[in-house]
Protein backbone atom coordinates (compact mmCIF):
# COMPACT_ATOMS: atom_id res chain seq x y z
CA UNK A 1 0.00 0.00 0.00
CA UNK A 2 1.31 3.34 -1.03
CA UNK A 3 0.64 6.76 0.37
CA UNK A 4 -0.80 9.32 -2.02
CA UNK A 5 -1.30 12.25 0.32
CA UNK A 6 0.13 13.35 3.62
CA UNK A 7 -1.32 16.41 5.32
CA UNK A 8 0.67 17.90 8.15
CA UNK A 9 -0.65 20.59 10.53
CA UNK A 10 -2.95 22.22 8.00
CA UNK A 11 -4.25 25.44 9.50
CA UNK A 12 -6.65 27.97 8.02
CA UNK A 13 -7.75 31.15 9.75
CA UNK A 14 -10.20 33.58 8.17
CA UNK A 15 -9.47 37.07 9.41
CA UNK A 16 -6.35 38.83 10.55
CA UNK A 17 -5.68 36.42 13.41
CA UNK A 18 -4.07 37.11 16.80
CA UNK A 19 -1.82 35.16 19.20
CA UNK A 20 -4.89 33.93 21.13
CA UNK A 21 -6.87 32.56 18.21
CA UNK A 22 -5.99 28.92 18.81
CA UNK A 23 -6.14 29.00 22.61
CA UNK A 24 -9.54 30.64 22.70
CA UNK A 25 -11.32 28.50 20.12
CA UNK A 26 -12.03 24.81 19.69
CA UNK A 27 -14.52 22.11 20.69
CA UNK A 28 -13.94 22.55 24.43
CA UNK A 29 -14.75 26.23 24.17
CA UNK A 30 -17.65 25.56 21.83
CA UNK A 31 -16.63 28.12 19.22
CA UNK A 32 -14.41 28.65 16.20
CA UNK A 33 -14.56 32.44 16.43
CA UNK A 34 -11.71 34.06 18.33
CA UNK A 35 -13.25 36.30 21.04
CA UNK A 36 -10.26 38.68 20.90
CA UNK A 37 -9.95 39.40 17.19
CA UNK A 38 -13.09 37.90 15.64
CA UNK A 39 -11.13 35.66 13.26
CA UNK A 40 -12.60 32.28 12.36
CA UNK A 41 -10.40 29.24 12.91
CA UNK A 42 -11.64 26.94 10.16
CA UNK A 43 -8.86 24.40 10.57
CA UNK A 44 -6.18 24.03 13.21
CA UNK A 45 -3.20 21.71 12.79
CA UNK A 46 -5.00 18.99 10.91
CA UNK A 47 -2.79 16.01 10.11
CA UNK A 48 -3.82 12.88 8.26
CA UNK A 49 -2.82 10.72 5.35
CA UNK A 50 -4.47 8.96 2.46
CA UNK A 51 -3.43 5.82 0.59
CA UNK A 52 -3.87 4.95 -3.06
CA UNK A 53 -7.39 3.77 -3.80
CA UNK A 54 -8.60 4.57 -0.30
CA UNK A 55 -11.77 6.49 0.59
CA UNK A 56 -11.37 8.73 3.61
CA UNK A 57 -14.45 10.31 5.14
CA UNK A 58 -14.37 13.72 6.81
CA UNK A 59 -17.45 14.12 8.93
CA UNK A 60 -18.71 17.09 10.86
CA UNK A 61 -21.49 19.62 11.20
CA UNK A 62 -21.54 22.93 9.33
CA UNK A 63 -18.76 25.14 10.58
CA UNK A 64 -16.59 22.20 11.57
CA UNK A 65 -14.06 23.06 8.86
CA UNK A 66 -14.51 19.82 6.91
CA UNK A 67 -14.95 21.56 3.54
CA UNK A 68 -12.01 23.81 4.28
CA UNK A 69 -9.76 20.77 4.11
CA UNK A 70 -10.63 19.85 0.53
CA UNK A 71 -10.83 23.47 -0.58
CA UNK A 72 -7.26 23.99 0.57
CA UNK A 73 -6.05 20.78 -1.02
CA UNK A 74 -7.76 21.66 -4.31
CA UNK A 75 -6.28 25.19 -4.12
CA UNK A 76 -9.68 26.91 -3.90
CA UNK A 77 -8.34 28.46 -0.70
CA UNK A 78 -4.87 29.10 0.62
CA UNK A 79 -3.96 27.72 4.02
CA UNK A 80 -2.59 29.92 6.77
CA UNK A 81 0.09 27.34 7.53
CA UNK A 82 0.87 23.66 7.21
CA UNK A 83 2.09 21.25 4.59
CA UNK A 84 0.60 18.66 2.30
CA UNK A 85 2.66 16.26 0.23
CA UNK A 86 1.10 14.69 -2.84
CA UNK A 87 2.90 11.54 -3.97
CA UNK A 88 2.43 11.10 -7.69
CA UNK A 89 4.19 8.03 -9.03
CA UNK A 90 7.86 8.88 -8.77
CA UNK A 91 7.27 12.59 -8.13
CA UNK A 92 6.18 14.35 -5.00
CA UNK A 93 4.76 17.81 -4.57
CA UNK A 94 4.67 20.06 -1.54
CA UNK A 95 1.19 21.36 -2.40
CA UNK A 96 1.19 24.63 -0.50
CA UNK A 97 4.50 25.87 -1.84
CA UNK A 98 3.75 25.41 -5.55
CA UNK A 99 3.44 28.34 -7.94
CA UNK A 100 0.21 29.15 -9.75
CA UNK A 101 1.10 27.23 -12.89
CA UNK A 102 2.06 24.10 -10.93
CA UNK A 103 -1.17 24.28 -8.94
CA UNK A 104 -3.15 24.62 -12.11
CA UNK A 105 -1.31 21.66 -13.56
CA UNK A 106 -2.27 19.43 -10.64
CA UNK A 107 -5.87 20.67 -10.61
CA UNK A 108 -6.22 20.04 -14.31
CA UNK A 109 -4.24 16.84 -14.64
CA UNK A 110 -4.12 14.96 -11.34
CA UNK A 111 -7.00 16.07 -9.10
CA UNK A 112 -10.76 16.03 -9.44
CA UNK A 113 -13.34 17.89 -7.39
CA UNK A 114 -17.08 17.41 -7.11
CA UNK A 115 -18.83 20.22 -5.29
CA UNK A 116 -22.14 20.19 -3.45
CA UNK A 117 -23.24 23.05 -5.68
CA UNK A 118 -23.02 22.01 -9.35
CA UNK A 119 -22.62 25.68 -10.29
CA UNK A 120 -19.12 25.57 -8.79
CA UNK A 121 -18.03 22.52 -10.72
CA UNK A 122 -19.84 23.01 -14.00
CA UNK A 123 -19.98 25.84 -16.49
CA UNK A 124 -23.71 26.33 -17.01
CA UNK A 125 -23.10 28.39 -20.15
CA UNK A 126 -21.82 25.41 -22.13
CA UNK A 127 -23.24 21.96 -22.84
CA UNK A 128 -22.63 18.96 -20.59
CA UNK A 129 -20.39 17.46 -23.26
CA UNK A 130 -18.59 20.81 -23.53
CA UNK A 131 -17.94 20.75 -19.80
CA UNK A 132 -16.16 17.44 -20.14
CA UNK A 133 -14.43 18.61 -23.32
CA UNK A 134 -12.98 21.51 -21.35
CA UNK A 135 -11.26 19.14 -18.97
CA UNK A 136 -9.91 17.07 -21.86
CA UNK A 137 -8.76 20.18 -23.73
CA UNK A 138 -6.84 21.22 -20.62
CA UNK A 139 -5.03 17.94 -21.04
CA UNK A 140 -3.98 18.90 -24.54
CA UNK A 141 -6.31 16.54 -26.34
CA UNK A 142 -6.90 18.36 -29.63
CA UNK A 143 -8.87 15.87 -31.67
CA UNK A 144 -12.55 16.79 -31.87
CA UNK A 145 -13.86 13.29 -32.56
CA UNK A 146 -11.78 11.75 -29.78
CA UNK A 147 -12.93 14.39 -27.33
CA UNK A 148 -16.52 13.73 -28.23
CA UNK A 149 -16.10 9.98 -27.97
CA UNK A 150 -14.46 10.23 -24.57
CA UNK A 151 -17.14 12.63 -23.31
CA UNK A 152 -19.83 10.22 -24.48
CA UNK A 153 -18.11 7.29 -22.72
CA UNK A 154 -17.84 9.21 -19.47
CA UNK A 155 -21.47 10.30 -19.51
CA UNK A 156 -22.51 6.75 -20.28
CA UNK A 157 -20.39 5.57 -17.37
CA UNK A 158 -22.12 8.00 -15.02
CA UNK A 159 -25.52 7.12 -16.48
CA UNK A 160 -26.30 10.42 -18.14
CA UNK A 161 -28.33 9.96 -21.31
CA UNK A 162 -25.78 10.59 -24.03
CA UNK A 163 -28.41 11.86 -26.45
CA UNK A 164 -28.69 14.83 -24.08
CA UNK A 165 -24.95 15.53 -23.95
CA UNK A 166 -25.30 18.67 -26.05
CA UNK A 167 -27.85 20.19 -23.69
CA UNK A 168 -26.97 22.78 -21.07
CA UNK A 169 -26.59 21.40 -17.53
CA UNK A 170 -29.32 23.80 -16.44
CA UNK A 171 -31.84 21.57 -18.23
CA UNK A 172 -30.96 18.64 -15.96
CA UNK A 173 -32.20 17.54 -12.54
CA UNK A 174 -29.93 17.98 -9.51
CA UNK A 175 -28.93 14.32 -9.50
CA UNK A 176 -28.12 14.44 -13.19
CA UNK A 177 -26.04 17.58 -12.71
CA UNK A 178 -24.00 15.75 -10.05
CA UNK A 179 -23.45 12.90 -12.50
CA UNK A 180 -22.18 15.34 -15.12
CA UNK A 181 -19.93 16.88 -12.48
CA UNK A 182 -18.56 13.46 -11.56
CA UNK A 183 -18.02 12.63 -15.25
CA UNK A 184 -16.16 15.93 -15.64
CA UNK A 185 -14.01 15.28 -12.58
CA UNK A 186 -13.18 11.79 -13.84
CA UNK A 187 -12.46 12.84 -17.42
CA UNK A 188 -8.72 12.71 -16.88
CA UNK A 189 -8.67 9.61 -14.62
CA UNK A 190 -7.36 11.52 -11.62
CA UNK A 191 -5.63 9.43 -8.95
CA UNK A 192 -7.09 11.77 -6.30
CA UNK A 193 -10.69 12.93 -6.09
CA UNK A 194 -12.35 15.31 -3.63
CA UNK A 195 -16.08 15.04 -2.98
CA UNK A 196 -17.67 17.84 -1.00
CA UNK A 197 -21.20 16.97 0.22
CA UNK A 198 -22.03 15.55 -3.19
CA UNK A 199 -25.32 13.93 -2.22
CA UNK A 200 -26.62 16.65 0.07
CA UNK A 201 -29.97 17.95 -1.06
CA UNK A 202 -30.70 15.08 -3.42
CA UNK A 203 -33.59 12.64 -3.17
CA UNK A 204 -32.75 9.54 -1.16
CA UNK A 205 -33.07 7.23 -4.15
CA UNK A 206 -30.79 9.50 -6.21
CA UNK A 207 -28.32 9.68 -3.32
CA UNK A 208 -28.06 5.90 -3.25
CA UNK A 209 -27.35 5.74 -6.97
CA UNK A 210 -24.64 8.38 -6.74
CA UNK A 211 -22.98 6.65 -3.79
CA UNK A 212 -23.09 3.37 -5.68
CA UNK A 213 -21.47 5.08 -8.67
CA UNK A 214 -18.72 6.55 -6.51
CA UNK A 215 -17.97 3.16 -5.00
CA UNK A 216 -17.89 1.51 -8.39
CA UNK A 217 -15.47 4.11 -9.70
CA UNK A 218 -13.20 3.67 -6.70
CA UNK A 219 -13.13 -0.07 -7.25
CA UNK A 220 -12.65 0.17 -11.02
CA UNK A 221 -10.06 2.93 -11.20
CA UNK A 222 -8.53 2.61 -7.75
CA UNK A 223 -9.11 6.34 -7.23
CA UNK A 224 -8.20 7.72 -3.81
CA UNK A 225 -10.99 9.92 -2.48
CA UNK A 226 -11.70 12.32 0.33
CA UNK A 227 -15.43 12.42 1.00
CA UNK A 228 -16.66 15.38 3.01
CA UNK A 229 -20.11 14.94 4.51
CA UNK A 230 -22.31 15.63 7.50
CA UNK A 231 -24.11 12.36 6.85
CA UNK A 232 -23.13 9.30 8.90
CA UNK A 233 -24.80 7.10 6.30
CA UNK A 234 -22.48 8.36 3.58
CA UNK A 235 -19.29 7.56 5.49
CA UNK A 236 -20.73 4.20 6.57
CA UNK A 237 -21.27 3.21 2.96
CA UNK A 238 -18.20 4.76 1.35
CA UNK A 239 -15.31 5.38 3.69
CA UNK A 240 -12.88 2.85 5.11
CA UNK A 241 -11.56 5.42 7.56
CA UNK A 242 -13.21 8.51 8.94
CA UNK A 243 -12.11 11.74 10.54
CA UNK A 244 -14.55 13.55 12.82
CA UNK A 245 -14.18 17.31 12.99
CA UNK A 246 -15.59 20.04 15.17
CA UNK A 247 -14.75 23.73 15.29
CA UNK A 248 -11.71 23.32 13.06
CA UNK A 249 -10.18 20.42 15.02
CA UNK A 250 -9.95 16.71 14.45
CA UNK A 251 -11.93 15.21 17.33
CA UNK A 252 -11.15 11.64 16.50
CA UNK A 253 -10.25 9.42 13.60
CA UNK A 254 -10.34 5.72 12.95
CA UNK A 255 -11.86 2.91 10.96
CA UNK A 256 -15.35 4.00 9.96
CA UNK A 257 -17.14 1.09 11.63
CA UNK A 258 -15.16 1.72 14.80
CA UNK A 259 -16.09 5.42 14.76
CA UNK A 260 -19.74 4.47 14.36
CA UNK A 261 -19.89 1.56 16.81
CA UNK A 262 -17.25 2.43 19.36
CA UNK A 263 -16.80 6.20 19.25
CA UNK A 264 -14.27 7.39 21.81
CA UNK A 265 -15.00 11.07 22.06
CA UNK A 266 -18.06 12.49 23.83
CA UNK A 267 -18.97 14.57 20.78
CA UNK A 268 -18.81 11.59 18.41
CA UNK A 269 -20.82 9.50 20.87
CA UNK A 270 -23.52 12.17 20.87
CA UNK A 271 -23.40 12.49 17.10
CA UNK A 272 -23.71 8.75 16.55
CA UNK A 273 -26.37 8.34 19.24
CA UNK A 274 -28.53 11.07 17.76
CA UNK A 275 -28.22 9.70 14.23
CA UNK A 276 -28.99 6.03 14.83
Amino acid at each position, binding site marked *: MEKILEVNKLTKVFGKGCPNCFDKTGPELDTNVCPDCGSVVAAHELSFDLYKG*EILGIMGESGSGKSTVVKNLFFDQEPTSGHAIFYDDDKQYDLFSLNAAQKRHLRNHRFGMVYQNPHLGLNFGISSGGNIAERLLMNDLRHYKEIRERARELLERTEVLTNRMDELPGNFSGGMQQRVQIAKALAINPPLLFLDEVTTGLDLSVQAKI*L*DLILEIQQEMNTAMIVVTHDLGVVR*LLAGRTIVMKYGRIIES*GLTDQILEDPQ*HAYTQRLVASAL
Partner: protein
Amino acid sequence: MTAQPILSVEGFSKQFELHEQNKLIPSSSDVDFNVYAGKLTALIGPTGAGKSSVLKGIFRTYLPSSGRIHYHCANGLVMDLARCDEHQILALRQTEIGFVTQFLHALPRQATEDVVAQPLFQRGMDREQARQKAREVLDKLTIPERLWGVPPATFSGGEKQRVNLARGLIAKPRLLLLDEPTASLDPKTTDVVVEMIQEMKLEGTAMLAIFHHPELVERLADNVVTLTPPTIDTAKEVA
Protein backbone atom coordinates in the same frame (compact mmCIF):
# COMPACT_ATOMS: atom_id res chain seq x y z
CA MET B 1 -2.04 -29.17 19.89
CA THR B 2 1.19 -28.84 17.98
CA ALA B 3 0.05 -26.55 15.16
CA GLN B 4 0.81 -22.83 15.30
CA PRO B 5 -2.31 -20.82 16.04
CA ILE B 6 -3.34 -18.36 13.33
CA LEU B 7 -4.79 -16.09 15.98
CA SER B 8 -3.94 -15.86 19.64
CA VAL B 9 -5.80 -13.58 21.99
CA GLU B 10 -4.15 -12.78 25.31
CA GLY B 11 -5.67 -10.80 28.15
CA PHE B 12 -8.25 -9.11 25.96
CA SER B 13 -10.58 -6.66 27.73
CA LYS B 14 -13.06 -4.16 26.43
CA GLN B 15 -14.90 -1.50 28.34
CA PHE B 16 -16.96 1.40 27.06
CA GLU B 17 -16.55 4.87 28.41
CA LEU B 18 -19.88 6.63 28.04
CA HIS B 19 -19.15 10.32 28.39
CA GLU B 20 -22.77 11.41 28.47
CA GLN B 21 -23.60 9.19 31.50
CA ASN B 22 -20.09 9.55 32.86
CA LYS B 23 -19.79 5.76 33.15
CA LEU B 24 -17.38 2.94 32.37
CA ILE B 25 -19.22 -0.14 31.15
CA PRO B 26 -17.13 -3.33 31.11
CA SER B 27 -17.93 -5.75 28.32
CA SER B 28 -15.21 -8.42 28.27
CA SER B 29 -12.32 -8.94 30.60
CA ASP B 30 -9.20 -11.09 30.54
CA VAL B 31 -10.05 -13.24 27.58
CA ASP B 32 -7.43 -15.73 26.31
CA PHE B 33 -7.72 -18.28 23.50
CA ASN B 34 -6.25 -19.48 20.20
CA VAL B 35 -7.71 -20.09 16.77
CA TYR B 36 -6.14 -22.57 14.35
CA ALA B 37 -6.19 -23.01 10.60
CA GLY B 38 -8.89 -25.46 9.51
CA LYS B 39 -10.48 -25.45 12.99
CA LEU B 40 -13.46 -23.71 14.48
CA THR B 41 -13.26 -22.14 17.91
CA ALA B 42 -16.63 -21.42 19.48
CA LEU B 43 -17.19 -18.68 22.06
CA ILE B 44 -19.89 -19.59 24.53
CA GLY B 45 -21.29 -17.96 27.62
CA PRO B 46 -24.42 -16.18 28.82
CA THR B 47 -25.76 -12.97 27.35
CA GLY B 48 -23.57 -10.09 28.46
CA ALA B 49 -20.42 -12.20 28.60
CA GLY B 50 -18.97 -10.03 25.84
CA LYS B 51 -18.81 -12.62 23.09
CA SER B 52 -19.62 -10.15 20.30
CA SER B 53 -17.22 -7.64 21.81
CA VAL B 54 -14.40 -10.11 21.37
CA LEU B 55 -15.24 -10.61 17.69
CA LYS B 56 -15.58 -6.88 17.10
CA GLY B 57 -12.35 -6.26 18.99
CA ILE B 58 -10.51 -8.67 16.70
CA PHE B 59 -12.04 -7.00 13.63
CA ARG B 60 -11.22 -3.61 15.24
CA THR B 61 -14.82 -2.44 14.99
CA TYR B 62 -14.23 -1.99 18.72
CA LEU B 63 -10.98 -0.57 20.00
CA PRO B 64 -9.68 -3.14 22.53
CA SER B 65 -9.06 -1.59 25.96
CA SER B 66 -6.19 -3.94 26.74
CA GLY B 67 -4.62 -7.20 25.69
CA ARG B 68 -2.90 -8.53 22.61
CA ILE B 69 -4.41 -10.04 19.46
CA HIS B 70 -1.62 -11.71 17.55
CA TYR B 71 -2.53 -12.58 14.00
CA HIS B 72 -0.24 -14.63 11.78
CA CYS B 73 -0.52 -13.15 8.29
CA ALA B 74 -0.29 -15.16 5.09
CA ASN B 75 3.09 -13.55 4.43
CA GLY B 76 4.45 -14.91 7.72
CA LEU B 77 4.39 -11.64 9.67
CA VAL B 78 2.71 -11.47 13.07
CA MET B 79 0.56 -8.42 13.76
CA ASP B 80 -1.10 -7.23 16.93
CA LEU B 81 -4.58 -6.39 15.67
CA ALA B 82 -5.24 -4.41 18.83
CA ARG B 83 -2.55 -1.93 17.95
CA CYS B 84 -1.53 -2.09 14.32
CA ASP B 85 -2.09 0.66 11.79
CA GLU B 86 -5.62 1.19 10.45
CA HIS B 87 -4.40 0.73 6.90
CA GLN B 88 -3.04 -2.70 7.81
CA ILE B 89 -6.42 -3.63 9.28
CA LEU B 90 -8.16 -2.44 6.10
CA ALA B 91 -5.78 -4.49 3.98
CA LEU B 92 -6.36 -7.59 6.12
CA ARG B 93 -10.12 -7.11 5.92
CA GLN B 94 -9.86 -6.97 2.17
CA THR B 95 -7.79 -10.10 1.78
CA GLU B 96 -7.59 -12.25 4.91
CA ILE B 97 -10.14 -11.59 7.65
CA GLY B 98 -13.90 -11.82 7.10
CA PHE B 99 -16.76 -11.08 9.45
CA VAL B 100 -20.35 -12.25 9.19
CA THR B 101 -22.52 -10.30 11.61
CA GLN B 102 -26.17 -10.60 12.48
CA PHE B 103 -27.03 -7.44 10.62
CA LEU B 104 -26.77 -6.72 6.96
CA HIS B 105 -25.28 -3.34 5.99
CA ALA B 106 -25.42 -2.70 2.27
CA LEU B 107 -25.79 0.16 -0.15
CA PRO B 108 -29.47 0.92 -0.54
CA ARG B 109 -30.84 -0.09 -3.93
CA GLN B 110 -27.94 -2.39 -4.68
CA ALA B 111 -28.93 -5.72 -6.22
CA THR B 112 -28.44 -8.71 -3.92
CA GLU B 113 -25.90 -10.34 -6.22
CA ASP B 114 -23.86 -7.11 -6.17
CA VAL B 115 -24.09 -6.95 -2.37
CA VAL B 116 -22.67 -10.44 -2.18
CA ALA B 117 -20.02 -9.75 -4.83
CA GLN B 118 -18.77 -6.61 -3.01
CA PRO B 119 -15.70 -8.27 -1.44
CA LEU B 120 -14.67 -9.50 -4.88
CA PHE B 121 -15.34 -6.08 -6.47
CA GLN B 122 -13.07 -4.62 -3.81
CA ARG B 123 -10.30 -6.96 -4.81
CA GLY B 124 -10.66 -5.66 -8.34
CA MET B 125 -12.24 -8.79 -9.85
CA ASP B 126 -14.07 -8.35 -13.12
CA ARG B 127 -17.65 -7.43 -12.18
CA GLU B 128 -19.40 -10.05 -14.30
CA GLN B 129 -17.09 -12.78 -13.06
CA ALA B 130 -17.67 -11.68 -9.46
CA ARG B 131 -21.45 -11.69 -9.99
CA GLN B 132 -21.27 -15.20 -11.38
CA LYS B 133 -19.55 -16.37 -8.20
CA ALA B 134 -22.12 -14.52 -6.12
CA ARG B 135 -24.95 -16.31 -7.93
CA GLU B 136 -23.35 -19.67 -7.21
CA VAL B 137 -23.15 -18.95 -3.48
CA LEU B 138 -26.68 -17.52 -3.39
CA ASP B 139 -27.91 -20.64 -5.13
CA LYS B 140 -26.12 -22.85 -2.64
CA LEU B 141 -27.73 -20.96 0.22
CA THR B 142 -31.14 -21.52 -1.41
CA ILE B 143 -31.93 -17.87 -2.11
CA PRO B 144 -34.45 -18.05 -4.97
CA GLU B 145 -33.12 -16.77 -8.28
CA ARG B 146 -35.90 -14.17 -8.65
CA LEU B 147 -34.40 -12.30 -5.65
CA TRP B 148 -30.82 -12.02 -6.98
CA GLY B 149 -31.42 -8.84 -8.92
CA VAL B 150 -33.45 -7.17 -6.13
CA PRO B 151 -32.01 -5.17 -3.22
CA PRO B 152 -32.16 -7.19 0.02
CA ALA B 153 -33.84 -4.37 1.98
CA THR B 154 -37.26 -6.01 1.79
CA PHE B 155 -36.08 -9.56 2.48
CA SER B 156 -37.11 -11.61 5.52
CA GLY B 157 -34.68 -11.90 8.44
CA GLY B 158 -33.58 -15.34 7.33
CA GLU B 159 -32.99 -14.25 3.76
CA LYS B 160 -31.00 -11.22 4.86
CA GLN B 161 -28.89 -13.44 7.06
CA ARG B 162 -28.14 -15.77 4.20
CA VAL B 163 -27.15 -12.82 1.98
CA ASN B 164 -24.83 -11.71 4.75
CA LEU B 165 -23.37 -15.19 5.00
CA ALA B 166 -22.95 -15.40 1.26
CA ARG B 167 -20.98 -12.15 1.32
CA GLY B 168 -18.78 -13.42 4.15
CA LEU B 169 -18.13 -16.80 2.59
CA ILE B 170 -17.53 -15.68 -0.99
CA ALA B 171 -14.29 -13.94 -0.07
CA LYS B 172 -12.75 -17.18 1.25
CA PRO B 173 -10.89 -15.45 4.07
CA ARG B 174 -8.08 -17.09 6.06
CA LEU B 175 -9.82 -16.14 9.28
CA LEU B 176 -13.59 -15.91 9.44
CA LEU B 177 -15.47 -14.38 12.35
CA LEU B 178 -19.07 -15.54 12.67
CA ASP B 179 -21.58 -13.85 14.98
CA GLU B 180 -24.71 -16.01 15.20
CA PRO B 181 -24.75 -16.71 11.49
CA THR B 182 -27.76 -19.05 11.69
CA ALA B 183 -29.88 -17.31 14.32
CA SER B 184 -32.97 -16.91 12.16
CA LEU B 185 -32.59 -19.81 9.76
CA ASP B 186 -34.87 -22.84 9.46
CA PRO B 187 -33.34 -26.29 10.16
CA LYS B 188 -32.93 -27.13 6.49
CA THR B 189 -30.99 -23.96 5.67
CA THR B 190 -29.02 -24.33 8.87
CA ASP B 191 -27.86 -27.72 7.58
CA VAL B 192 -26.70 -26.09 4.35
CA VAL B 193 -24.74 -23.51 6.31
CA VAL B 194 -23.18 -26.19 8.52
CA GLU B 195 -22.12 -28.04 5.41
CA MET B 196 -20.56 -24.90 3.93
CA ILE B 197 -18.70 -24.14 7.14
CA GLN B 198 -17.35 -27.68 7.21
CA GLU B 199 -16.18 -27.31 3.61
CA MET B 200 -14.36 -24.12 4.50
CA LYS B 201 -12.71 -25.81 7.44
CA LEU B 202 -11.46 -28.49 5.10
CA GLU B 203 -10.06 -25.80 2.85
CA GLY B 204 -8.09 -24.52 5.83
CA THR B 205 -10.11 -21.50 6.96
CA ALA B 206 -9.69 -20.68 10.63
CA MET B 207 -12.98 -19.74 12.29
CA LEU B 208 -14.10 -18.05 15.45
CA ALA B 209 -17.83 -18.27 16.01
CA ILE B 210 -20.70 -17.45 18.30
CA PHE B 211 -23.68 -19.78 17.88
CA HIS B 212 -27.21 -19.35 19.08
CA HIS B 213 -27.81 -23.08 19.48
CA PRO B 214 -25.60 -25.28 21.68
CA GLU B 215 -26.28 -28.03 19.18
CA LEU B 216 -24.32 -26.16 16.51
CA VAL B 217 -21.38 -25.80 18.86
CA GLU B 218 -21.39 -29.55 19.18
CA ARG B 219 -21.63 -30.12 15.45
CA LEU B 220 -18.98 -27.62 14.38
CA ALA B 221 -16.61 -26.58 17.19
CA ASP B 222 -13.11 -28.00 17.53
CA ASN B 223 -12.41 -25.87 20.59
CA VAL B 224 -14.78 -24.17 22.99
CA VAL B 225 -14.00 -21.05 24.99
CA THR B 226 -16.35 -20.10 27.81
CA LEU B 227 -16.69 -16.44 28.69
CA THR B 228 -18.23 -15.11 31.91
CA PRO B 229 -19.81 -11.68 32.24
CA PRO B 230 -17.78 -9.07 34.11
CA THR B 231 -19.46 -8.58 37.49
CA ILE B 232 -21.83 -5.61 37.77
CA ASP B 233 -19.82 -3.93 40.51
CA THR B 234 -16.89 -3.56 38.14
CA ALA B 235 -19.01 -0.92 36.43
CA LYS B 236 -17.76 2.24 37.99
CA GLU B 237 -18.10 5.94 37.80
CA VAL B 238 -15.38 7.68 35.88
CA ALA B 239 -13.18 9.51 38.31
